[in-house]
């Protein structure tokens, strides 16, 4: 596989970074601005609903856009193999965190003694970081190089899955 043009590095990194940051923004509610459609007012960052509902969607997009632009520009100035490694690390971290935290919650539910620390996300984050670091070091460079454009559909698919999953209460009430 030949080195990717800078435009491809930028576009792929931008797409992946946007999806990740956007999912975080929707879950933690990090809009750069809030729009009140009934009055037409705009407010900085998060604003509670005033006269009528508040819309955060545009603010989430702007937050994700700025973050993704910064990361994508950064990706064009560092060696491509670093970008490929970083994306592999982030993907491994996301998958491992999901597995570890789900296992921790299952263990907490099934335990006969109080294991409150299992509910603390920090331990799952640390375990996932360690696991992702090991995976990233062990995976041969040709693999990360070969699969890296494929992240451009895997990560958005993951983002779709997560955002849809979090909207499940709408469909179960």
């Amino acid at each position, binding site marked *: *596989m*030949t080195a*990717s*043009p800078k*435009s*491809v590095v*930028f*576009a*792929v990194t*931008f*797409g992946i970074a*946007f*999806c990740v940051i*956007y999912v975080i923004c*929707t879950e933690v509610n990090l809009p750069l601005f809030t*729009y009140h*459609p*009934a009055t037409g007012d705009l407010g900085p960052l998060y604003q509670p609903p005033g006269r*009528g*509902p508040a*819309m955060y*969607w*545009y603010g989430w*997009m702007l937050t*994700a856009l700025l973050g*993704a632009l910064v990361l994508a520009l950064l990706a064009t100035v560092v060696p491509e193999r670093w970008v490929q490694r970083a994306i592999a690390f982030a993907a491994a971290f996301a998958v491992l965190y999901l597995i570890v935290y789900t296992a921790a919650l299952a263990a907490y539910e099934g335990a006969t003694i109080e294991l409150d620390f299992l509910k603390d996300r920090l331990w799952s984050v640390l375990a996932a970081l360690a696991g992702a670091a090991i995976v990233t070091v062990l995976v041969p460079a040709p693999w990360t190089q070969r699969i890296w*454009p*494929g992240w*451009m*559909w895997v990560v*958005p*698919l993951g*983002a*779709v899955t997560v*955002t*849809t999953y979090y*909207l499940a*209460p*709408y*469909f179960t*009430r």
Partner: protein
Amino acid sequence: MVFWTTLLILHGLLAITLIGAVTHQTVAVWMPVRSAAGNFVARYRAVPSHSYASAIVVLYVLTFILGAWIYTHYRYTARLALEQLRFFKVVGAFEVKEHLAVIGLVMLPAYWCFWRQPLAADYAEARKHVTLLLALLIWANFLIGHIVNNGRGFGS
């Protein structure tokens, strides 16, 4: 009301055009025909898939902009009514739609790069999968939009 209805119809027409283009391209890239085209299905598969990329990008962006604009009106009119009617599944479906639309939008730069001429063999697999996912997102958004519109009823 006439203004927003006009925008909604334009949005729908653009979406239909976009669906036609992306479906054509997806079928052509996943099931290409090598021999001379015969019946309708074979001719459908035989189109030069790369020729759709720019049109799909432009149509997607235009459809998105119109949708994002209409959303401001939907949020404090139709949605409030849907909530009062306890049509939570319809409201939830629209929430899904807003996320799918954004995710599809940010895939476009990479999608466009993958389809630039001459087509790079290194991106052949990514090109196929990105195109398929984009097509699925567009189809899902179209169907959800249709359902949400039906939830309230045109002009009600």
